[in-house]
């Protein structure tokens, strides 16, 4: 049972994920068709196919080594905070245009500071940090470099 559970660790799952990606990549490479070919001409699919085959070989070695000598693995509980950061970041990307830079960045900075447990017991310092981060990068991008950042709620209309 323990052996079976051990297979579900990052050291095994990452190469398995890459195997799946490589398989999709290899299948898609057979859909590439050349427009012209001459003597000795390699087609546009040749290198992708070669790369995929080499990838299979390298991943086989990685998996073989991993199964013989398991590497240090991340405990599931240690993944909670990075997962929260990814969730918060995905929400930020989703809301960046609809809400605009200022509201979305204020919210995103606040969520990250909570995840990093910074000054959550001193609301005034916390608010200062959130506003400071948002204002600093607004000043940098929009002020100094003249970049047009999404305005508040412009994506809703």
């Amino acid at each position: 049972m323990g052996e079976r559970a051990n297979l579900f660790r990052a050291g095994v799952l990452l190469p398995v994920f890459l195997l799946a990606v490589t398989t999709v990549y290899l299948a898609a490479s057979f859909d590439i068709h050349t427009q012209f070919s001459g003597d000795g001409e390699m087609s546009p699919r040749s290198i992708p196919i070669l790369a995929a085959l080499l990838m299979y070989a390298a991943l086989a070695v990685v998996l073989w080594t991993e199964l013989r000598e398991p590497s240090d693995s991340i405990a599931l509980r240690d993944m909670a905070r990075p997962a929260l950061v990814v969730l918060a970041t995905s929400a930020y990307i989703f809301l960046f245009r609809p809400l605009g830079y200022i509201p979305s960045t204020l919210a995103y900075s606040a969520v990250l500071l909570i995840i990093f447990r910074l000054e959550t017991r001193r609301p005034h310092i916390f608010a200062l940090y959130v506003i400071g981060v948002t204002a600093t990068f607004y000043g940098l991008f929009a002020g100094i470099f003249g970049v047009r950042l999404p305005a508040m709620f412009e994506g809703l209309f």
Partner: protein
Amino acid sequence: MDTFLNLLTGFSALADWSVLAFMVGGFLVGTFFGAMPGLTSVLAIALLLPVTYTIDVVPALVMCASIFMAGMYSGSITATTINIPGAPSSMMTAVEGNQLMLKGQGANALGHAALGSMIGGCIGTVLLMAFMPVAAELSLLIRTPGKFSLVLFALVVIIIVDKDNIAKGVVATLLGIMIATVGIDVLQPIPRFNFGTETLVEGIDIMPLVIGAFAVSEVLTQAQSWNDPLARTLEKARGLVIRRRDFIPPMSEIRAIGLLAYLRSAFIGYGIGILPGAGGSMAAFVSYAVARSGSKKPEEYGKGSREGIAAAECANNSMCGGAFVPMLMFGIPGDPTTAIVLGVLVINGLQPGPRLLESQADLLAPMLGSLFLSALILIPLSLWLLGPYFVRIVSIPKGLLYTAIAVVALVGSYVATYSVFQMALAVLFGVLAYFMRQQNYSTVSLLLGFILGPDLEEYLRRALSLNDGNPMIFLTSPDSLFFLVLTAIFAYVILFRKPKRGPLARDG
């Protein structure tokens, strides 16, 4: 000689106050990122990459060069003061510098680190300027099969440098090559791997990959192992009193180290910089080991050797000059920083190669000037002005720092192309790089595979096409054969040759 003089003339661009401001600003950013444990100059340049879309190429390159030089030097600050190297290249400085710090001679150690960095940085830049025209002439002799073998050499060396993780290095490099094949084919107008979407027809830009691999993955890694060391580092930093006058190393100590030691370290650093994938850590370590084995006072090593500090710092800053040679002449970056600088060149429509030096010397010269002036003036000046406050850098709350990095990384991804898709790609690559880093897959190999993959494919297909598909051309072409033999020699030396047991090996 003309090219050398042209480069010197190009230094005048630094007289423009706005370009000078980018140089000083870049140096301060590089110093901050280099001094802060966990942050690197690579991350600094990665975060500023989107900014280069909105400014001219000259200030962008000037800024990158000063960040590179500052980041390489400033790792020695926290290495010396609190025994936490700000950058991996300062590991050997931590060994010696912190011992001096414990004896109450921390400012003296910082002074020697700055002097070594200054000398190494200047010599590395002069060597770069002096030998680049020669390298350009030599690179003209390399034809298509030779270019393929040269790129292959670079990729192989990058993979085997980490000889305990070769299979993972191959996986990371191939993954980079596979990502680079998305988009229009290198020789024919055929879209590849776009999966029916128009967004992927143009291919994947370097920027989300750089930001994902170096910035987003760093935020996730820090989130995973989160314990803010603020209290501990503040405790260490609180009692430190550093006076400016103590920064200046006495002449007797400089004479004891000797001019030859500085020169030897600078040449070692420059030579290692030219090698793909070697970087500042290897330069510092090799130079330190050589200095130790030939030292008149080997008993001082490990107990606060000024010679050891000088050797390590001189070499890692001299490496900056060497790393630019393969990048500018062949488009082959020597380390991750020059890989991102290559991205800046490509974004601005500049193609690395021997002609670059002739046609665009006016663009390159300010960058080389920035490397030189950063080493000669900004390193000692920043130590003098900011030295007493350096150690307080570590007291900035890490939560605030990584929140700021996350925001600038994502907004930076957006502003480059005004595309939310680029932000999503940066996060996707960031998550992938996070898991890769956890499992010791090199993200540098991923990046270099992405950058060099299209060249490898193009040169291979062109060479075969021009020779009726005969692969023997790679063995019959002298330049190609040279690089293949060089690859074999490097593979033998790195993988099979057992190191001689020296004092370092004996000490474990």
